[in-house]
């Protein structure tokens, strides 16, 4: 019996329609509800991560007058801040939140391919967050080993949270990997196998491409984290010596010998570097779509953008040891990994050029999502350039454990993705909620966030050049660091407090608009991609009413000469475009590059 694709069958996918309130909003199998649940949970953990950063920033800025942060808590706050932001906030929000919400809508599907598995994914994610938060309440508190959890200090008595805290962290990460795998398999199979009629891979919006490649990276990179977690758990609980060399603690040898801390670093960064791109690639995709819509131009070099995403994804697996130049690994590795690191800058720079060329001579509409998207280009270029410094072994060696590194990765994978998140949330808020947000408030929020984030992270570069080491509780009286460094540190803390406080504007705007915002137009920005063409706003369960949409063009037909409006939705066939404009028009002879 020949296999008939589901989209060709008369009877489509069986929808599990909810009957009760609980089925509709709590244990929902609707990808949109799951996306919002994922996003809400991620934002909640993100707020905790932000609060932790303020606590240790207060300590760094005003070490004399802040007495509620002791050294142990300082390390715990730094560790939890890092882990929460990278894994539980950014990864979960981009892939779990936006991935879930956008993939079926942008592809013209009714839902993910396995909605029940999707629901399991979000609840497993909740369990992992609960386990993570539980570590704040066990004796000894959460682990304070730094977010990279390097052995041997993770399991040694001097580290805060070396008993219960680290175990909960490892269990939570393992559960997160399970949750991600369930969701990630769904995203990949949905993108490959459940597109609507006419939706070829090369007509997909770049958001979907970014999420797709990031998910594939996640499926191949998270296993390394899982294995590292299992092995470290064995070291901690069973007394094996995978990562623990012979150690003498307080004069007496511990029961470990022959393990290799470097092995953990390799496993961790084999996960950790692709993880950077798991966060960055969906951000690249989302920002491409936002820029194109608000510049009223097709994205410059769509095919190049897709291949750049794929190239970055592939290369991201062979650059991991640039995090380990000072680890004591074989120094010859440094040459190889520096080379690959600089090569990965090529497709990344290519994307930046294409974003700028998209803006070039565009009919730019400075709506608030566009503010954030353009802000992203600034911070990303800035963070990317310092990446070229740190990718080189000789420059990395003196800068490695200084604030320069902190400044680099916060600009490139902290501030930049978060600016994209704000752009994306503002951009899609009218579709998700059916209401408009307050434009003025959003712009105030942008300026406070953008300038504030710069005044937090720009000074850190100077601190790094001065040689101020990262991860120190207080600088104290250090001869090689000038006293003025502390003034800079205090300034940074004040800026951080202002940025954090300005996020209240965002929440006021979003939550207030849900209730008082004026009703949104189904397509307020005039976007061509499929998610704006749903029959209902916000889309209802099943997304498309009676009939699945058919796609006739790529997602970027903006300002096409001769067309009636300055955008042509993906669902409009060629003859209707002609009917809409009576003039003879040229575009038909030169179909868009994606029209294969």
């Amino acid at each position, binding site marked *: 019996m020949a296999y008939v694709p589901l989209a060709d069958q008369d009877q489509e996918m069986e929808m599990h329609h909810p009957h009760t309130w609980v089925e509709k909003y709590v244990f929902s199998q609707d990808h949109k509800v799951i996306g919002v649940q994922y996003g809400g949970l991620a934002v909640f953990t993100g707020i905790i991560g932000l609060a932790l950063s303020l606590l240790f920033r207060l300590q760094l800025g005003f070490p004399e007058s802040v007495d509620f942060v002791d050294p142990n808590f300082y390390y715990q706050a730094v560790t939890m801040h890092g882990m929460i932001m990278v894994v539980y906030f950014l990864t979960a929000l981009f892939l779990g939140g936006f991935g879930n919400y956008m993939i079926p809508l942008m592809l013209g599907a009714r839902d993910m391919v396995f909605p029940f598995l999707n629901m399991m994914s979000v609840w497993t994610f909740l369990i992992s967050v609960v386990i993570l938060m539980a570590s704040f309440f066990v004796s000894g508190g959460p682990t304070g080993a730094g977010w990279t959890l390097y052995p041997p200090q993770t399991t040694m008595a001097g580290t805060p949270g070396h008993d219960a805290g680290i175990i909960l962290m490892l269990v939570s990460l393992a559960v997160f990997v399970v949750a991600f795998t369930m969701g990630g398999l769904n995203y990949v199979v949905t993108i490959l196998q*459940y*597109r609507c009629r*006419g939706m*070829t*891979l090369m007509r997909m919006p770049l958001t979907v491409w970014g999420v797709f490649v990031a998910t594939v990276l996640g499926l191949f990179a998270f*296993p390394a984290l899982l*294995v*590292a977690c299992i092995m470290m758990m064995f070291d901690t609980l069973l007394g094996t010596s995978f990562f623990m060399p012979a150690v003498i603690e307080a004069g007496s040898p511990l029961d470990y010998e022959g393990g290799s801390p470097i092995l953990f670093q390799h496993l961790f960064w084999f996960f950790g570097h692709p993880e950077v791109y798991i966060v960055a690639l969906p951000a690249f995709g989302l920002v491409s779509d936002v820029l194109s819509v608000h510049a009223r131009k097709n994205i410059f070099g769509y095919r190049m953008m897709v291949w750049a995403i794929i190239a970055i994804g592939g290369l991201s697996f062979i650059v991991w040891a640039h995090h380990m130049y000072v680890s004591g690994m074989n120094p010859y590795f440094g040459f190889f990994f520096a080379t690959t690191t600089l090569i990965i800058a090529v497709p990344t720079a290519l994307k930046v050029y294409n974003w700028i060329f998209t803006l070039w001579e565009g009919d730019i509409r400075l709506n608030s999502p566009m503010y954030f998207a353009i802000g992203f280009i600034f911070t990303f270029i800035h963070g990317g350039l310092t990446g070229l410094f740190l990718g080189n072994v000789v420059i990395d060696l003196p800068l490695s454990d200084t604030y320069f590194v902190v400044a680099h990765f916060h600009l490139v994978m902290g501030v930049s993705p978060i600016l994209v998140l704000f752009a994306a949330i503002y951009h899609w808020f009218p579709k998700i909620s059916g209401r408009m947000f307050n434009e003025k408030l959003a712009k105030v929020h942008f300026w406070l966030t953008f300038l504030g984030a710069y005044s937090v992270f720009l000074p850190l570069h100077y601190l790094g050049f001065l040689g101020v080491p990262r991860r120190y509780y207080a600088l104290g009286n250090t001869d090689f660091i000038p006293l003025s460094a502390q003034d800079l540190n205090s300034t940074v803390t004040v800026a951080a407090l202002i940025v954090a406080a300005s996020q209240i504007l965002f929440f006021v705007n979003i939550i207030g608009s849900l209730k008082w915002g004026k009703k949104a137009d189904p397509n307020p920005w005039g976007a061509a991609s499929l998610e704006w063409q749903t029959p209902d706003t916000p889309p209802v369960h099943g997304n498309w009413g009676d009939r699945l949409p058919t796609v006739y063009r790529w997602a970027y037909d903006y300002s096409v000469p001769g067309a009636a409006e300055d955008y042509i939705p993906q669902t409009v066939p060629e003859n209707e475009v002609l009917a809409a404009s009576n003039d003879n028009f040229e575009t038909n002879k030169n179909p868009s590059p994606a029209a294969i």
Partner: protein
Amino acid sequence: MSDAATGEISQEGMESLVDDFSSDRQAYHVPWGKAMMWIFLVSDTFIFSCFLVGYLHARVTTTQPWPPQSEIFALSFGGDPIPLILIAIMTFVLITSSGTMAMAVNYGYRGDKVKTFWLICVTAVFGATFVGMQMFEWSKLIAEGVRPWTNPFGATQFGSVFFMVTGFHGLHVTGGVIYLIWVALRVRRGHYDNKGFEIVEIVGLYWHFVDLVWVFIFAFFYLL
């Protein structure tokens, strides 16, 4: 504007690859479950690869000599000890189970539910036998004093890696046996009569994967 979906679908070579990736609706002409299983297995491959790379690294860095596997994993039946005999039998059992699994897939696509059911059951029994022999092997080593944290024959990491890697693989086999029994029962109840029997192939993919992983564990841990 061409529409790839309406064209002829090529079945071979580069053309079929291009067709797969330029088509609309779906890239591969397979059911969703099968595509998902393949991707999951690639992901799982990374897990086992990391375990094996970790093992090789530990073996290189440990300061004590690695114990001779052929002596440790030897059994004597009255006479001289035969090296690796138990592992050889275990490997044979597991690879045989792959054969019965392949037959089950074949009969599944022919719609022969009775034979499919019984062949899946035989596969599950082989799998359970494998896990049983693994339990025997574990208890023998534990009786000899090998623990994850200690090893009387040499490097501590030998015990750690042994229990971790074979344990993780054993969990996969155990999960596979449960999965097989679940599918077998649903085949017999006629659950797939209308849906088609792709599920037998999907569980088969998982089962063959678990076998293949064992071949690598066998080669790297027991033979190397």
